[in-house]
């Protein structure tokens, strides 16, 4: 066999080397296109659901409204004991840290509660509770319905699966995250107040403490709170419904869809949280 010349070897090497960035660009491109398409699909699903329940409220059937009410009961009300426990622990631990590192200054404690609990941990932990409790359940429910042919059966019976299944779940989750986060904040701040009165030096009264708390808050906190609760709620349910309904034809596809849905919902939640914080507090 003829030995390749140095020129041929050089050309081959250069061709191989130049092929690597092309592969990388192609790979990144495909991944980015997939991500853009996924985000667009979830946004479309959520947007349609919100439009149906806002602009098209009059056309929403009573049964869909009943499903929405049940969804809020299941998602928000049943999550309250667990949310309360976490809120007590979070509120208590923030106060303990404040006592340890901020010399127990009531002003600093109030600031810390607003910074840590109201702005970040409250909405984030509430949304995570609902991903764990209800988002996963939603993927399983929708996935099993898909595998069992129930969604097709609804469609064949003239029931719009989107209106009957997706709309109440998406909107119900949005409302539920807001409610659970509000409850979480009340309990966490209440715990902070209680722990503060026991640990923090001086005789700060409840009214004064709440005053300190309110002084630390601005309109941005209100906007951030709703942006970090209602919108992630919609996203979590949108992702859960999407992953469940596209799980695949086999029962074994459902657990995989749950894992995928949970990871994607968590990622979306954290990315959204950072984006909202950056937009509202850095701008």
């Amino acid at each position: 066999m003829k030995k390749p010349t140095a020129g041929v070897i050089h050309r081959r090497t250069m061709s191989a080397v130049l092929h690597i960035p092309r592969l990388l660009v192609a790979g990144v491109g495909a991944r980015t296109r997939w991500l853009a398409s996924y985000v667009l699909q979830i946004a479309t699903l959520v947007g349609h659901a919100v439009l149906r329940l806002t602009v098209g409220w009059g056309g929403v059937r009573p049964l869909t409204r009943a499903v929405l009410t049940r969804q809020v009961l299941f998602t928000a009300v049943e999550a309250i004991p667990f949310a309360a426990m976490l809120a007590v622990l979070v509120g208590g631990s923030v106060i303990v840290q404040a006592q340890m590192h901020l010399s127990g200054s009531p002003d600093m404690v109030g600031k810390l509660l607003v910074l840590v609990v109201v702005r970040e941990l409250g909405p984030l932990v509430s949304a995570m509770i609902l991903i764990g409790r209800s988002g996963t359940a939603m993927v399983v429910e929708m996935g099993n319905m898909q595998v069992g042919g129930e969604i097709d059966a609804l469609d064949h019976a003239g029931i719009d699966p989107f209106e009957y299944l997706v709309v109440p779940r998406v909107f119900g989750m949005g409302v539920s995250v807001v409610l659970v986060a509000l409850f979480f904040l009340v309990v966490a701040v209440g715990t902070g107040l209680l722990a503060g009165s026991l640990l923090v030096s001086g005789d700060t009264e409840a009214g004064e403490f709440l005053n300190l708390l309110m002084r630390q808050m601005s309109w941005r906190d209100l906007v951030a709170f709703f942006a970090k609760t209602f919108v992630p709620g919609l996203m979590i349910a949108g992702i859960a419904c999407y992953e469940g309904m596209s799980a695949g034809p086999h029962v074994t596809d459902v657990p995989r869809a749950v894992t995928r849905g949970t990871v994607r919902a968590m990622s979306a939640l954290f990315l959204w949280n950072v984006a909202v914080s950056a937009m509202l507090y850095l701008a």
Partner: protein
Amino acid sequence: MTSPLSGCDAVLRYNGVSVALPRLQGPLFAPLHFELRPGDLVVLSAASGKGKSPALRAAIGAQPRTSGEVVCLGETVSNLSPQALLALRRRVGFVPLTGGLLSNLNLHDNLTLLWRYHDAATRAQIEERAREVCEQLGIGDLRGRGLATANHHERHLIAIGRAWLPHPALLILDEPDFGLDDDAAATLWSRLAALRSRHGAAMLAASSRPSLALRSGGTHLPLQHDEAA
């Protein structure tokens, strides 16, 4: 009953209809021609996997056709928008092979789902009709019973009852006797025959045992397959 396609009062008309599945090349069966009038029964038969379910789904526009036209309750199915198609399906009772009962609802809520969704009647009217349908189909007491407490036969009866509750002009049944012994299947078909004669409902069914289905009248239509295809 089988062709000619002249009747304008036909509940359902298949005019040279054939369907295909994505994984297969060519139509699943030779073009179907028939029409159903009120009170008629047509039973499609074929071996498993040879196109009975797709043939039924074509009636409500849930299966793409390779040829022909379906006219269902006066509407040309291929001309309908997705919303109009849903509206048409609300006027047809469709019972899939799996029954399609919702696992998150109890038996009673499954039975009454369509009427509750369509908000077509008061609660008392729905309860009255549910009792009537349970009597007609021989369904026992459903109160307080979850889906898991029902056996295969009961589930299928409830699926039929759910489709029948609004008294549609056309009932489409995908192997309603699947998994039943001969006695139970014969009882089911005689109950369905009573619905046809009493209410004038037209029925299109698929069955692997057409002789049982046709004991009380009706037309047998075996799906013809082009072996070369």
